[in-house]
Every structure is written in C-alpha cells, then in structure tokens.
C-alpha cells in the first residue's frame, strides 16, 4: 500500500438518482498516485462535460497500434470491476488473438438493484468510460464499439449527446453505438449481453464458446464493465506505477462502492482497495452485506475489522464483487431481508436450466417459510431441505446465477443462525419493518428480457 494513501480512503461520493450531481467534500490528500478520487471528479467540480474532462485528463492517449496497451494493463494488475475481478489483460489478449474483427462492449447493465456505481460513473465521468472504450477497441483491434446501458440509465444520462459531441470533434476512432439493456438482474452477464446485442433476448447461454471467442454476432467480443474501462483510460495516461500507488500489491487500484448505510442513505464512493470497511460503512447493526445479491453477509463485529479486498474477505466466503456494501440496521431481520431478495433472484432466473428453475423457486419458498413470510409456522425439515437443495443447484447452471444465489442464502443461514432459531420457534427479532434492501419487481412478460 502506498504511504500516500489517504485515510479515510473515501474520496468522493454521490447520492444516486436524477439529482445525482451532489458530492461529498473530497478528502484533502497528498499529490501523486495516491490522490483520490481518480475516476469521479473532485467534489465541487463539474466533471461530466467534455471540456472539463479534457482539461483534467487531456486527449485520448491512443497507442497507434493494437495490443500495445496490453503489457501496461498487465503491469498495472487491473481486474474487472463488474464483480468477477477477472484480470483485464487476459481478456484483452484473448480477444486480440482471436480470429475475426472483434467487438468491444462497455457494460453498464448494472442489474444489481443494490448497486449504483456504474450509474454514478456515467453521470459524473462518462468521458473516462468512452476513452476507455476507444482504447480497449484499439488494443484488441475492434471495428465496432458498443455501450450497453440499462434502459433507464440511458434515458437519464446524456450519453447520446456526449458521444455525438466526441464524434463531431473527431476524438473517437471507432464509432460508438448505445444499446439499451433490459432491467434484468442477469442482463449484464456476458453471454446474455452478447445475445441481446446480437438481436436476441438478454438470457445467458451455455459456455463454451466464451464470448471472447464467439460473442456479438459470432465475433470475438471484449466485454468490460464501464468502471474497468475508466480505470483503463487512466492507466493509459498515467501508467501502471501510478495505478498501483493505491490499493494493495495483490489487488491494486481503487474501486467504486455503493454504500447503503444503516440509516438508509445510499452513496457511491471511490475507495482504495484495502481500505478498512469500518471507514466506509459506519456502524452496521447486525451484519454487512458485501458484494451484492450474489455476495455474502458478514457479522457486523467481524466486518468492522476487515479491509475492502478479496484477500481479506475470501476466508469469510465473501468477495468485493461490484462494490456493494449494505449495513443492515439493528431493527431489521436479516433472514426476512434475505428471503425477499431470494424471491427476487428466483424470479430473475431466465427460466432455462434445471438448477435455476427447479431449485431456486423451492429454495426461495423454503426460505420464506423459515423467515415467517409464508404465513405459517416453519416446518421441522425446512432448514435441512434448504441445505440439501442448495447443494443440488451449486455449479450446475449455464451461468452463475444459482451458485451466487446459493452463496448469498448460505451466508445468511450462517450469519443469522440465531434468528433462524428464533423463527423456528415462531418469533422474529425484528418485528414488522419495511424492506431495507431494494427488491424490484421481476419480469412479467418475455419482452422484459429484450
């Protein structure tokens, strides 16, 4: 970790929503690579327009040749910020080496209801994303660049205007087209994305072939989260050494996090990886949800001693994912919250594979019964059934939806073991309380996947 890393690592924050441009005061920090924020404009400065962007970062640093940027990305150790933390240079290499003209897609599907970081980034620093898209296209020799943006985000941002302004000024070498993503939890899954951009429904398909071999229209396709592209644009300008000045040696850089505090307030911050979780989310009442709805619950007492890094979270079965941190207030029941989310996740299944279709509805129902949402006393075998069914769906779907859902539910059964005992005796510690974690409605017709 760089000695210049500012503490707290929180640097810039926005409240998501149409009136999003509010920022918290940025932390005064020493100059150099440790200065945060990197992606989001410093508080009080307008960032989203092209002039401000060019004033802060200068023009797109094209390398003039494909694949030139890849060694720099490898040296920087950049990993995907969409949730899977896959090394970016490996995807770049695979797509650059694949035969046929590649397609590059910036992924802002942000299907995770608890996450708002892609939204914040597109509002506050869209040109960093668009720079990254151009640089990625150059690196893999792509002839086509797509920005895949959740439909309501596209409507509420000015991306179309900003792209045409870049075009008019001749900044972009590859024309960028915007494709609207449906508001589905799985719409950003790579193969679902490739299917939608190819004209189909945004539902996952069985792999192989992976999208880097055959993706959009059967072409080798690079799919990167928009935050990853923004980091890429900064690495191309300031170099791997600068990038590594924040974060940990194994997990360098910063990441955007969506914080849902126990008081219900929601904000997006850019934090150095390795920052103490306690600095980011104040006091979690009972537990902290890390990594979103495919992530895991961690007991509050444990969470307050942990850092924001996969190395720190892995032993607890958690990972940073797309940076969702939600502190469950003391007056809410984690089991009830989990049951509601599990139901949402079951409904968001694409309805294709056995594990999802046969497993998740049952698991969601059993969990609802256990949480007391089914309107009857939990049966004696509910807990045993839950763990058995969870084992049956693990690792068997076309995508990771069943695995992620089961991971989330298992962590809840572990962390809220005391509540489980209460519920089995027909008592809930939380009483009546409105939902804390956002649970949107599931799809109602097949058109909702396109």
């Amino acid at each position: 970790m760089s000695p210049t890393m500012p503490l707290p690592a929180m640097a810039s924050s926005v409240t998501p929503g149409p009136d999003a441009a509010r920022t918290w005061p940025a932390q005064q920090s020493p100059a150099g690579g440790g200065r945060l924020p990197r992606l989001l404009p410093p508080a009080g400065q307008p960032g989203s327009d092209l002039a401000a962007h060019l004033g802060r970062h200068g023009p797109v640093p094209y390398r003039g040749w494909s694949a030139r940027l890849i060694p720099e990305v490898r040296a920087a150790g950049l990993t995907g910020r969409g949730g899977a933390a896959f090394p970016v240079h490996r995807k770049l290499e695979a797509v650059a080496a694949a035969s046929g003209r590649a397609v590059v897609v910036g992924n802002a599907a942000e299907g995770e209801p608890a996450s708002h970081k892609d939204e914040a980034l597109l509002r506050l620093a869209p040109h960093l994303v668009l720079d990254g898209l151009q640089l990625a296209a150059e690196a893999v020799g792509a002839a086509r660049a797509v920005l895949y943006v959740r439909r309501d985000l596209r409507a509420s941002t000015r991306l179309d205007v900003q792209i045409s302004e870049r075009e008019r000024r001749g900044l972009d070498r590859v024309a960028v087209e915007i494709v609207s993503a449906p508001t589905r939890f799985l719409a950003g899954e790579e193969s679902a994305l490739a299917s939608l951009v190819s004209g189909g429904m945004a539902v996952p398909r069985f792999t192989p072939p992976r999208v880097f071999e055959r993706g959009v229209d059967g072409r080798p396709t690079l799919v990167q989260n928009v935050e990853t592209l923004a980091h890429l644009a900064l690495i191309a300008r300031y170099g791997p050494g600068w990038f590594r000045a924040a974060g940990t040696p194994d997990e360098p850089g910063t990441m955007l996090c969506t914080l849902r505090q126990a008081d219900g307030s929601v904000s997006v911050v850019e934090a150095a990886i390795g920052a103490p979780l306690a600095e980011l989310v104040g006091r979690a009442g009972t537990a902290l949800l890390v990594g979103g709805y495919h992530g895991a619950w961690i007991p509050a007492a444990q969470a307050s001693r942990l850092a924001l890094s996969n190395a720190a979270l892995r032993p607890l079965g958690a990972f940073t994912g797309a940076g969702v941190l939600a502190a469950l207030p003391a007056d809410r029941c984690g089991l009830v919250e989990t049951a509601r989310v599990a139901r949402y996740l079951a409904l968001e299944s694409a309805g294709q594979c056995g594990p999802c279709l046969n497993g998740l509805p049952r698991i969601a129902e059993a969990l609802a019964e256990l949480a007391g949402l089914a309107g009857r006393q939990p049966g004696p075998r509910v807990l045993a059934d839950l763990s058995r069914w969870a084992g049956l769906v693990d690792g068997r779907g076309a995508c990771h939806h069943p695995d992620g859902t089961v991971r989330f539910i298992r962590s809840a059964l572990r962390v809220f073991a005391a509540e489980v005992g209460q519920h089995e005796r027909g008592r809930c510690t939380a009483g009546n309380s409105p939902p804390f974690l956002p649970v949107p409605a599931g799809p109602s017709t097949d058109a909702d996947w396109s």
Partner: protein
Amino acid sequence: MMHGITSSTALWYASRATGVVSLVLLSAVMIIGILVNRQGRLPGLPRFAVLGLHRNLSLLAVTFVALHVITAVADSFVSISLAAAVIPFVSAYEPLWLGLGAVSLDLMAAVIVTSLLRRYIGRRTWRAVHWLAYASWPAAVAHSIGSSKDLQNGPLLGLAVACILGVVGALAWRLARARAEVPRARRVPDLMASQRIPEGHAAGQAPQDRLVRAGRR
C-alpha cells in the same frame, strides 16, 4: 431347444435373462429421459429426483447390457464373436438381429462416453450425441424381438409391447407438452404459485409497487 439350466447352458440362459431385463431398464431410462426436461415431472417425485433416477437407471441398464453381451459372447451354445457384438452385421448367427444389437450397443456407448465427458466437450456436443438414444432404443427393441424366440409370444411378448407403448406414450405426452410451453416469464412464478410469498413482512405492509419504487429510485 433347451431343457433346464445345466453348466453348459447357464450362460445362454443368463444372456437371455439379462437381455430381457436390459430391455425393460432401457425402456424405463427412455421414458424418464423423455419426461426429464425443465417442465416434466413424475407424480410424487421432486424434479431433482427424476434426473437422478434417469442417471442411476442408465447406470443399471448399462450394467445389465454389459452382462448380456459378455454372457452371449462367452457362451458356446451359439458362437458369437466379440467383434460381432460391436461391429454390426458381421455375425454368422442371425446377422441382421445381432447386427441391430451391435448398432444399439455402439450408439449407447457414444451416449455414455459423451455423458461422462460432458463437462469437457460442452453442452451442445453432448446434447447432439445424446439424441442418438432415440436411435439406440428402437434398434435394441428390434434386436430383442427379432433374435429372441422368448419375446415373440406369451407374457414376454406382452412385456415387450408394454415397453414400446410406454416409450411411445411418453413421447406423445412430451410433444403435447412442448406445444403448450410456458412462457419464460411465467415459469418461476408458476412454480412458486403454490406458496405465494407475501411482499411485506406482515399484513398491511409494503405492496409490490412501493417495493419497486424503493428499489429503483
């Protein structure tokens, strides 16, 4: 013909018996395989169990088929070479009917090997090869009835007919179901309809539309 089991006829009897059992098991595997899809289920069995049953019965059937082939080859009552058991239509004895058995065996082998390697070959290849089961079973049925006098009359003929009707019936049911396929968006809700999960924690709590607004700003 044979009169009683002796040391010299034991293998021949064993081969005929395992052949009949194989036919029944393979038909059961077919029936369950046809019913195993995302919407099929057997009465009284959870969906998971149907898939497990298909796999385990397949394993059992393969064991009996292997016994059937080994005993037939090892038996000296009629001379069937190992080659004739796997290469179609080269047998000196009943070349057509034994040949169909060999065809069925080879197709079965392809289905089994690809199922074992499913993780490595990808779902698409596996699925393509798995369709061969639909060719393997009729070949096995023709082989059974054609090469065995046992199955040509009496109760065993009834058994063979029952196997055929079972598979054809399952196929008809499946095709009828496929025509009335549930739309994607209804699949999970239909499965959860039996125990509808209330939205709020207790009566008078957040209705659906409030949840939506809370979730999507």
